[in-house]
């Protein structure tokens, strides 16, 4: 497969096609309906079919191509002792400054191959799912064109061979996320959420851009050949400090994109978008771009241990922080959102302790079960007629069995129950944390694992067990299973969240840590002194134990909640009363939004108001008005010379000309 560029450009083609057709169709409808196409008008079936085929088809084709590309590569590099050299294909020279050129070049190596595999695969499934999920929505074509555009940007990001090109994809996915969060732009909170996401990402991108410049300053190049240079420690700039700064800047970008504290605020609000979007962009693919970036630049990060420590602690902090918030949420999607944030924290924790391959492994597995969970929640919400409050659900296990089973599997996976995917990846993270001697981090991770298990099973229990709460039409009693276009992807994802972990069975369990060896080629590996297998297995048992405890606890508090009215058991209520202020704080998401409002936004508003009222209105306008006044004065004086008699003008003109001639003659 020697045409890598086709992979991103197929979705682009899909985007153009869908977008154009949607535009033309909607304008046509607007015309013959004598007005803007009024909301809720379902598209004609033929057009829906077209959009579906183009949208799914383009991405599916891209997926086929990418597997055609990466499978041979993966197998080959598995056999080769050192792994294969990365495949780099230059499409054309993007910009040339002096003797330095930035090419539009695509790179296929272990890292991008891994990303490519699940991005295209999960992406395709979610496109299929969307066909079912969005069928009643208006702007069907718009939705698919955005989704295709996102796939284009994401694939560019993954395949890019240079930081500038990666940044293009980076911004592209940011844009698409903004567009899709604000998909229901006629609802205020959706538009607001979109803006919030965009601005939070800007903060990150600011660091990202500076980071790119920094990399260029350090290595004299911005394409990924700098990784090699970093491995051989060939540095141009002021080494230790420079590296530290660049790492922090790049990590700032990663934080923005991957919703790490304190830039995580946008991700929960992003749930305002359609659920498949949350699954694709805000769980499986885009938000992991930050981890990908850090893994890409791992060689650089390794050069600066301080930066790595910071990464690790930010990750760990985010993990536990988000997990605590997740405990107290009642909106099913919000819970999943915070769980995503917390899992991302895990990944950064792994990177921080130098286990980049472990981080990427978790990215990989997480993509499957989190996507599965989100899609499942989407199915639930749809069956509940767009009810998202878990307290109004309950007892759905019997009504939507397929959704229930798939979600249960995914929950066990994310909780880290042996032998599901989540277990291996999470355990690899905790193991390497312990192995690298950061026992504090390990403890945090372990505790978070417990919390994860708890809130996830809380979600499952409140949704599916007990009796149907809520009342009136369109609730539990009338819930019905979703169409196969939605359930089939659920099953596939569930299956993968079971088996995906087998890629990385640790040596201790008689496996051979394939993923680690696979990624060796492209990510750095600071030497981790091995632990004895006994200790390792012990830790595994411990984490499984913690997970099971969490599950049991959640079942005890929420699973048996019987009464039609109550969502939670008395114990839970009691516990909540006992925690008091702290509990309220947690339930209120630690007041992060309020804090940002108070510390950042309101000062900015004040400054802005001052610049407007004081500086612009008084000073600038003052100058303008003054000059205008002067000109007017001058005009009042001069206008007495304009008699309006053409002959006067002619005479004056001639006098001037005569004077000129006289002057020329004399001189």
């Amino acid at each position, binding site marked *: 497969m020697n045409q890598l560029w086709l992979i991103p450009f197929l979705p682009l083609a899909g985007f153009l096609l869908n977008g154009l057709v949607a535009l033309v169709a909607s304008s046509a409808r607007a015309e013959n309906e004598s007005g803007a196409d009024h909301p809720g008008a379902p598209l004609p079936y033929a057009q829906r079919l077209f959009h579906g085929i183009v949208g799914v088809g383009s991405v599916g084709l891209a997926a086929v191509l990418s597997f055609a590309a990466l499978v041979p590569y993966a197998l080959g590099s598995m056999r080769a002792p050192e792994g294969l050299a990365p495949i780099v294909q230059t499409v054309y020279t993007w910009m040339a400054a002096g003797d330095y050129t930035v090419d539009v070049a695509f790179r296929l190596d272990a890292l991008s191959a891994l990303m490519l595999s699940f991005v295209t695969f999960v992406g395709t499934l979610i496109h299929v799912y969307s066909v079912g999920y969005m069928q009643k929505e208006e702007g069907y074509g718009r939705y698919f064109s955005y989704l295709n555009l996102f796939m284009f940007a994401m694939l560019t990001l993954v395949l890019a061979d240079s930081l500038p090109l990666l940044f293009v994809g980076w911004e592209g996915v940011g844009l698409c996320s903004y567009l899709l969060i604000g998909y229901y732009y006629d609802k205020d909170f959706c538009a607001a959420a979109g803006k919030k996401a965009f601005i939070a990402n800007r903060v990150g991108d600011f660091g990202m851009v500076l980071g790119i410049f920094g990399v260029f300053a350090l290595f004299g190049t911005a394409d990924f050949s700098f990784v090699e240079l970093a491995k051989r420690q060939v540095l141009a700039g002021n080494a230790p400090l420079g590296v530290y700064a660049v790492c922090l800047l790049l990590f700032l970008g990663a934080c923005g994109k991957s919703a790490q504290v304190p830039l995580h605020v946008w991700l929960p609000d992003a749930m305002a978008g359609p659920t498949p979007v949350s699954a694709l962009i805000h769980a499986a693919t885009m938000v992991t771009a930050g981890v990908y970036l850090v893994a890409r630049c791992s060689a650089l990060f390794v050069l600066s241990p301080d930066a790595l420590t910071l990464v690790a602690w930010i990750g760990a902090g985010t993990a536990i922080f988000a997990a605590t918030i997740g405990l107290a949420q009642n909106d099913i999607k919000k819970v999943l959102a915070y769980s995503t944030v917390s899992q991302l924290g895990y990944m950064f924790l792994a990177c921080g302790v130098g286990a980049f391959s472990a981080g990427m492994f978790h990215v990989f597995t997480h993509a499957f079960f989190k996507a599965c969970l989100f899609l499942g929640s989407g199915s639930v919400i749809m069956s509940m007629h767009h009810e998202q409050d878990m307290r109004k659900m309950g007892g759905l296990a019997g009504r939507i069995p397929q959704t229930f089973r798939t979600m249960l599997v995914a929950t066990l996976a994310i909780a880290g129950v042996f032998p599901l995917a989540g277990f291996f990846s999470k355990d690899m993270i905790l193991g390497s944390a312990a192995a690298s001697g950061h026992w504090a981090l390990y403890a945090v991770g372990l505790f978070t694992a417990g919390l994860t298990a708890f809130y996830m099973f809380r979600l499952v229990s409140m949704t599916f067990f007990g009796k149907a709460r809520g009342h009136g039409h369109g609730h539990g009693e009338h819930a019905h299973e979703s169409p196969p276009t939605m359930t089939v992807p659920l099953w596939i994802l569930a299956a993968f969240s079971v088996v995906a972990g087998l890629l990385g069975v640790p040596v201790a369990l008689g496996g051979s840590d394939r993923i680690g060896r696979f990624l060796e080629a492209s990510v750095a590996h600071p030497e981790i002194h091995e632990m004895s297998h006994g200790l390792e297995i012990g830790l595994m048992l411990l984490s499984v134990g913690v997970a099971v405890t969490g599950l049991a606890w959640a079942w005890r508090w929420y699973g048996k909640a019987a009464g039609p009215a109550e969502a939670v058991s008395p114990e839970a209520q009691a516990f909540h009363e006992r925690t008091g202020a702290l509990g309220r704080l947690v339930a209120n998401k630690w007041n992060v939004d309020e804090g940002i409002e108070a510390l950042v936004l309101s000062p900015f508003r004040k400054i802005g108001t001052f610049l407007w009222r004081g500086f612009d209105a008084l000073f600038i306008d003052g100058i303008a008005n003054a000059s205008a006044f002067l000109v007017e004065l001058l005009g009042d004086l001069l206008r007495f010379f304009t008699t309006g008699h053409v002959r006067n003008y002619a005479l004056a003109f*001639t*006098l001037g000309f*005569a004077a000129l001639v006289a002057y020329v003659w004399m001189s």
Partner: protein
Amino acid sequence: MPALSGELVVFGFASLLVLAFALLMVVQKTPVRSVLSLVVTFFGLSVLAILLAAPFIAALQIFVYAGAILVLFLFVIMLLNLKEEAADKDDRPVQRTLGLLVALALGGLLAGATLRAPLPPRGTPTGTPIPMPDEIPALGRLLFSDYLLAFEVLSLLLLVAAVGALLLSKRRFE
């Protein structure tokens, strides 16, 4: 002082004609008559042009200037039915006297200046010599080589002028 030749006689006659009728054109009160005197002036000018080895220009002078432009003037005058210039005397005497003075002064200045302007020494003409028997092909070649751009721009200008004239002379602007 060159010998009195036929050419000189023609020149004297033509230039007298030109100046006389130019003056007549200015002092004339009736627009129609001033147009006519201008026509005569142009005749004289074309004679001068022939003396200056520019018969093509001479023909154009009559063909375009006298034959087209001034006829247009006549048209407009007749259309607006302009008779005698208003009998009431000029209400800006200053303008009148001053204008006269300035015109004379400038005329004198220019005459002096042109006469003092450096002229190429005898017998060393610069640029392409005028092929006496038929200068029209030479002009044509020049027009379509060195002056091509000007020529094209000119054609555009004429088009614009035609359109503009049509628009302006429409009865209503709506």
